[in-house]
């Protein structure tokens, strides 16, 4: 797979970089946070993102998208990650769009994908049930009752779950996992927003006798385990790209600080104890870059190593984001632990993003299993 971007991808990346710089610098994130808008993102900005076509990048042209592929959306996330741009794009345009694209029937695709591409609706994926990622053995159940289903169970860490117009629910249906789509206002859905340390919205959601019709089933009954796994890998790869953007920005900001701050009559960046740690981080970041690119392009080039590459990227980037966000704070000294200064935002985002669809250890384990040990 190619490890250098093609023209289309470079163009998307440049556009996203300009957008992030001009429309959503870190001060934008800060103002959204301080506004105490419980949605944790700005609807106007989201509209602009959609009008640039970003919400339709993974969506086929017949449903209003551009079908530019995972690498295309990945490079955009990398740039948005640099400035911590909050938006419903990940849940809506990556996770849920992919689920519907892979599992949905023609009517569902026409209906939902078109509206996702145009930016008219937002969606969230209700999957997790415990405090650590474990997609297998779900306890939320869907029981068939005539031509409807009754859904019962509890979900947690539903990204964007507080305000998304629709929820896609993963539920056990006896012999496997099935996917359902529901309007957030449907009876039987109780949503509790969980304010998170990174100031983005997530929710705990309880389903109590939520009644859905067979037309709300996405894909075959019991038939979605494999599709969920595939979509999770796409999502892991894209979130890794976002995290990689955060890593680079935190590192660049720190590097600048090392060149500016004077102590003992010298720039602190002239101290070898800091220089070597910076050089080691640089080395790790170079490795991260290769992992992210290889994983992002693996989908578009139908590699047979997709799951392993997704785990490689998510684990490696998770670990290095830990390292870099910790070092960034430390190397700033006192100012690094103030709310007034932005660097702490990266520390907070690093930890939340690491939990999304599997933390470092989850993916190390998976990598080994896929390698035969």
């Amino acid at each position: 797979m190619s490890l250098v971007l093609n023209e289309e991808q470079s163009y998307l990346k440049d556009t996203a970089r300009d957008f992030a710089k001009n429309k959503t610098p870190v001060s934008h994130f800060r103002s959204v946070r301080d506004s105490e808008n419980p949605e944790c993102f700005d609807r106007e900005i989201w509209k602009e993102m959609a009008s640039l076509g970003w919400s339709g990048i993974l969506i086929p042209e017949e449903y209003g998208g551009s079908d530019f592929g995972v690498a295309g959306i990945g490079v955009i996330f990398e740039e948005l990650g640099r400035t911590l741009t909050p938006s419903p794009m990940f849940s809506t345009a990556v996770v849920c769009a992919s689920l519907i694209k892979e599992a949905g029937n023609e009517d569902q695709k026409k209906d939902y994908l078109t509206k996702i591409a145009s930016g008219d609706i937002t969606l969230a994926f209700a999957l997790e049930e415990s405090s650590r990622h474990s997609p297998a053995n779900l306890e939320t159940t869907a029981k068939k009752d005539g031509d409807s289903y009754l859904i019962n169970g509890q979900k947690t860490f539903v990204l964007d779950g507080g305000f998304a117009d629709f929820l896609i629910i993963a539920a056990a249906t006896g012999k496997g996992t099935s996917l359902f789509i529901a309007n957030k206002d449907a009876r039987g859905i109780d949503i509790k927003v969980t304010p998170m340390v990174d100031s983005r919205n997530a929710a705990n959601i309880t389903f109590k006798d939520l009644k859905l019709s067979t037309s709300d089933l996405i894909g075959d009954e019991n038939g979605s385990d494999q599709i969920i796994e595939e979509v999770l890998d796409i999502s892991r790869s894209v979130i890794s790209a976002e995290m990689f953007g955060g890593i680079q920005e935190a590192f660049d900001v720190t590097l600048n600080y090392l060149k500016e701050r004077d102590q003992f009559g010298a720039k602190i960046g002239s101290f070898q104890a800091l220089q070597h740690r910076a050089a080691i981080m640089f080395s790790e970041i170079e490795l991260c870059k290769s992992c992210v690119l290889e994983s992002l392009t693996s989908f578009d080039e139908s590699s047979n190593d997709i799951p392993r590459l997704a785990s490689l990227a998510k684990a490696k980037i998770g670990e290095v984001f830990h390292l870099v966000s910790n070092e960034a704070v430390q190397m700033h000294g006192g100012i690094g632990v103030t709310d007034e200064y932005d660097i702490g935002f990266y520390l907070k985002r690093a930890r939340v993003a690491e939990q999304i669809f599997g933390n470092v250890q989850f993916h190390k384990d998976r990598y080994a299993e896929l390698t035969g040990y």
Partner: protein
Amino acid sequence: MSDLNAFRNETRDWLEANCPESMRTPMSQGDVVWGGRKVEFKDPDQKVWMDRMGEKGWTCPTWPKEYGGGGLNFEENKVLQEELMRIKARPALNSFGIWMLGPALLEYGTEEQKMEHIPKIVRGEIRWCQGYSEPGSGSDLASLKTKAEDQGEEYLINGQKVWTSYADECDMIFTLVRTGPLEPKHEGISFLLIDMDQEGVTTKPIKLISGKSPFCETFFDNATAPKENLVGGLNKGWSVAKRLLQFERNMIAGMGFGSAASGSSKKSDTKPTSGLATMAKRYVGEKEDKLNDSGLRNKIIDHDMNSQAFALTLRRAAEESKKSNQGPSAASSIFKYYGTEHNKLRYEIMLEAMGTKALGWDGAEFGPEELAITREWLRTKANSIEGGTSEVQLNVISKRVLELPQ
């Protein structure tokens, strides 16, 4: 594309006809062919293979044809390497000439110097060693003191080098010498080629912790070298020296990676496996398909992931520099540091897996592979020292790449 296919077919046929069967078997350290006037072949096929490859220029496939090289472009060389790998051919010839001196001469040498020295490197006729380090000048290489004085027709050389790998088996030595004693330290150094087959040059082997003596002290006592052996101009040797170090570092960085350096290929049908895990399972056993030591398993996972990440980065750097048509990309500055530290760790993990089986010195109670791993573990400790230490590499990254203040 079809040209490349034709080239692949020709190459395959030629290798089929010219690579002796015995040269397609796994080799041990002692089987490396270094060439030179004093070469001793353990097996006559080694000479046949070296001579045939040298004649074709394929010991240095990408060097220009006019100096005896193979004249292959990037793509053709890739094909050649793939075909060599396919039949598991041993390298026909290894040498410091190929890895270090040749590439530097091609950039800095005069036409006469290239005509004189390059073909002999390609054909394995002359074996070179590297005379950089001195007892008082290691990391601070530019403080070196060995001096070369202008005697009209030739230079008169006096001084001492140390850690000169294989000096006692080599024919010629490329050295850094002080020719401008009054100039600032970097500006009084020249790059000089010296024939070791003379009275004024003597060597004395030094024994390593691995028990081997691959390097020496090298003494120059009124040794001489003709004027035309000065490369890159009087007192301009430091640029040549640095460029050569880049070649050296890239070579050392890739050690222990072998074919991994080509990265995962697009659609290989082979199931991914882990060499470390397979070997560790033999020693510690497995439980439900998992290695029966979770701490060790975690270390192997880290190592395997980093191996893959590093191999991908080697590939990315190659793609980037090919695309931009410029020199090495920023990524390549990490290779020496990362590659050698990673390789050291690999042997530490093997030791942990093997327990006392990895701690034998000799004797029939240990398997030959086990003994080899022990010695190799000791040898890897030098990886992060030779060619510039890890600390020096981190200094280089800090200053040149990150542009941190002095």
